[in-house]
């Protein structure tokens, strides 16, 4: 697969999922289980992506400047700091630690 093919396929699948909601009978939503699984699916995927993005280095684990940056980010989100500010601070923490070491 080329990069473009991956991008187009993923974009179409995500768009199709949105449109599917408008043609699926809403009776499915009355059942709590599919709705709950969809909610938890989002949580699980985001948490897994955080772990891989923070600790992963190709196909191995590495402890480096990313971990302190993510811990600082979590602390800032906990005190309701705006998204963009947190992302910039996290980048600065990691960049600063790398410049020092």
């Amino acid at each position: 697969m080329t990069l473009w093919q991956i991008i187009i396929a993923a974009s179409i699948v995500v768009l199709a999922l949105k449109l599917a909601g408008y043609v699926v009978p809403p009776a499915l939503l009355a059942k709590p289980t599919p709705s709950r699984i969809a909610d938890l699916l989002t949580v699980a995927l985001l948490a897994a992506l955080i772990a891989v993005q923070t600790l992963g280095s190709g196909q191995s684990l590495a402890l480096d400047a990313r971990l302190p940056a993510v811990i600082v980010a979590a602390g800032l989100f906990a005190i309701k700091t705006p998204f963009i500010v947190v992302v910039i601070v996290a980048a600065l923490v990691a960049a600063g630690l790398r410049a020092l070491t």
Partner: protein
Amino acid sequence: MTPAPLTVPAAHFVDETRQQRLAVREGLAVGLATAAYGVSFGALSVAAGLDIWQTSFISIVMFSGGSQFALIGVLAAGGVAAGPAAIASAALLGVRNGIYGMRTASIVGSGLWRRLAAGWITIDESTAVALAQPTPRSRRVGFWVTGLAVFIGWNATTLLGALIGDALGDTRAYGLDAAAAAAFVGLLWPRLKRMQAIAVAVAAAVVAATLTPVLMPGLPVLVAALVAVVVGLFNWLGGPVLPRAASARKGLRP
């Protein structure tokens, strides 16, 4: 003296206009806030190896922040070889938009083209603002204003971020890899209100980290998603069931 019932339509009209104005204001505010972090998506996408055209294409067609960050995150870790896993991650994060669509279908109005456009902009923000409004008309106004404001803002700032990322060069030196992880934390944070969600998040993170040295890039994230299916199916740590109140209101992210 005017009988009381005659004043009701006028009062109702004033109230309705006020509700719509509030819905417009809320939608524009959410659109502005979301646009601010489109910059981070644009920069991180270029850092992951995509060009400016590819980055903008994703923001226009996919138009769902969580799925977009997931796609470029997996591609950054595993390259083109991780393509299928990257597509699957983006798709699984896009499932909730389909659930939102079932709720907003009765809000957005009729006609094929209008419903197609509505589907395109059905995301956390447009759904959350729409469902928060008190009247049918203000719900419709809230949905469309929020969806269109986020769409325009998100795509404009994605392009800006891509141009900045392109100019930066070595993105690791600027800590952009850590910024990507922080962006995921920001998407997750508003969803961690209940014990069940927190437990799923911790378990999924542990599963993904543990499997990283064993499986090819992208797959650990997909296996970790099974945690949600198992916990959701048996409703472990679930407590009372609230089928309709869930989902959209929890996370104000695209």
